[in-house]
């Protein structure tokens, strides 16, 4: 039974509607059955009725707030400055059309909820405003989805349309779902770190930790503790210290440059991968570990093995699945796609109306060989979007080494050699 109106003023909120010819005794039942929040407001936007969805959303019952101005019930971000009634009054239109706006409300439980409000005026037979129906949709799920999509399509996402990238993105979910060790290869700036994170996010371990390890040069004993932890001693100062592997328990451990790891630690890593256990420094008892290892290198792993910088047995163990990220210069048609992709992101970020690149700017950018790969391309577009004041990125908005390929420094300047080579390469392509 609907008892929403069983208050001191039974059915009174609908008296006006009945008088106006909208004689529907079942109106509360109809409104209560709707899957979104509905509030019936009088001409002064005082609350007459709320359906059960809106009661749950706001935390108030219809009885508690009957007669209360809706701004104190909905507490919407649109209530104070963009209230439909105020906007309508300002426009000097006696009765406004239905309109929607997005915002947030703060409910009785002090929770901020993203919502969309659609205010629908209900008119009597004479065309005068009788009441207003405020339809409130809870956008929490949509906003969460949007945030998730932004995370996977923002500047930190892996995108690409060339065949190599399409293949990579196609097999990524299957690789992520498996628990196999993965070796990522690719030049600096191609996105190895992003790919490692994407693998983790798409894996069943996504809710657990993603721990990144940089095996930077440090004394071996210290690195041992850093990676594999330290067993506790007898005194208080000798408390056990977890290593990166322990921190990554049940999650993913990412070794960002495997060849930087000394051979002794490579041996321990190999044992860990085989035995799924590690003995912390200074300890005797092995500790069971459930960690997925993703390793990366910016160099050719076969060459590293030949040079004695990477243990061959570890290489074969890590090489269970190998994913290669091609450099930008080999991604051909992707350059324009990446330029447009990042321009869209940074134009939005900087609130600029930048629509694209001028033909000259695009020609310069397409001819450039991007030795810093996607990272360099992204930074270049960020800079261009930042300095661009119009709707097209012009050559003036590009860094000088892209803009003036002919102004290469003298070849005997060793510091500029790499830049000169880049420019030469770029000019050849033009």
């Amino acid at each position: 039974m609907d008892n929403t109106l069983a208050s001191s003023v039974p059915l009174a909120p609908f008296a006006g509607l009945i008088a106006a010819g909208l004689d529907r005794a079942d109106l509360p039942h109809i409104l209560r059955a709707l899957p979104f929040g509905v509030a019936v407001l009088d001409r002064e936007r005082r609350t007459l009725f709320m359906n059960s969805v809106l009661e749950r959303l706001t935390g108030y019952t219809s009885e508690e707030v009957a007669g209360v101005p809706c701004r104190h019930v909905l507490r919407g971000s649109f209530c104070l400055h963009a209230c439909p009634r105020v906007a309508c009054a300002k426009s000097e239109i006696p009765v406004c059309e239905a309109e929607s706006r997005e915002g947030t409300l703060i409910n009785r439980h002090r929770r901020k909820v993203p919502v969309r409000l659609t205010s629908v005026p209900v008119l009597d037979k004479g065309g005068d405003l009788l009441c207003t129906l405020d339809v409130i949709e809870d956008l929490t799920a949509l906003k969460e989805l949007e945030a998730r999509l932004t995370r996977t399509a923002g500047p930190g996402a892996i995108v690409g349309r060339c065949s190599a990238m399409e293949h990579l993105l196609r097999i990524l979910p299957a690789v992520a779902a498996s628990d196999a060790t993965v070796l990522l290869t690719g030049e600096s700036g191609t996105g190895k770190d992003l790919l490692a994170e994407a693998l983790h996010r798409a894996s069943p371990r996504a809710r657990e930790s993603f721990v990144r390890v940089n095996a930077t040069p440090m004394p071996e004993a210290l690195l041992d503790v850093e990676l594999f932890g330290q067993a506790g001693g007898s005194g208080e100062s000798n408390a056990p210290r977890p290593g990166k592997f322990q921190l990554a328990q049940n999650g993913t451990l990412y070794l960002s440059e495997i060849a930087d790891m000394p051979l002794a630690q490579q041996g321990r890593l190999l044992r860990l991968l085989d035995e799924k256990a590690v003995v912390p420094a200074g300890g005797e008892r092995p500790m069971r570990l459930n960690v997925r290892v993703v390793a990366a290198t910016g160099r050719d792993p076969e060459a590293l093995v030949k040079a004695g910088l990477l243990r061959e047995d570890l290489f074969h163990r890590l090489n269970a699945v190998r994913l290669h990220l091609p450099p930008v210069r080999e991604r051909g048609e992707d350059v324009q796609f990446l330029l447009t992709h990042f321009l869209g992101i940074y134009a939005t970020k900087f609130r600029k109306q930048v629509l694209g690149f001028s033909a000259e700017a695009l020609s310069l950018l397409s001819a450039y060989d991007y030795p810093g790969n996607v990272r360099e391309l992204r930074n270049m577009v960020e800079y261009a979007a930042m300095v661009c004041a119009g709707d097209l990125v012009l050559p003036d908005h590009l860094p000088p080494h892209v803009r003036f390929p002919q102004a290469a420094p003298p070849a005997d300047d060793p510091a500029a050699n790499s830049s000169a080579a880049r420019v030469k390469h770029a000019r050849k392509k033009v």
Partner: protein
Amino acid sequence: MAKKILVTLYRNEVAPRFDLASEVLLVTVDADNREVRRQELVLAHASADDLCDLILDREVAVLITGGMEEEHYHYLRWKRLDVLDGIAGLAEDALARYLRGELESGDILFPRGEHA
């Protein structure tokens, strides 16, 4: 001992939302709850964080406001403020009720069910 009470304002009402209030009423009362000073402040812009800073800066002891997020509520409670939130009504009514010791969080002071 004097005590400062801050009421967030929207026109003559308690502001429905703490984070959107751009005006506040700051009232100082003595040990007998008699008003000794009254100030209305217009803020540069509405911001819950800035309002929290103002409240702490002015050594406010009691906050009377409308809906506020849990984060700010707990922050001010942690700073030992007496926070009366979720108040719907005229600012003067809310203040008078507080001084009489009759105001509680979530109180709706507007007349109810008198229309139709």
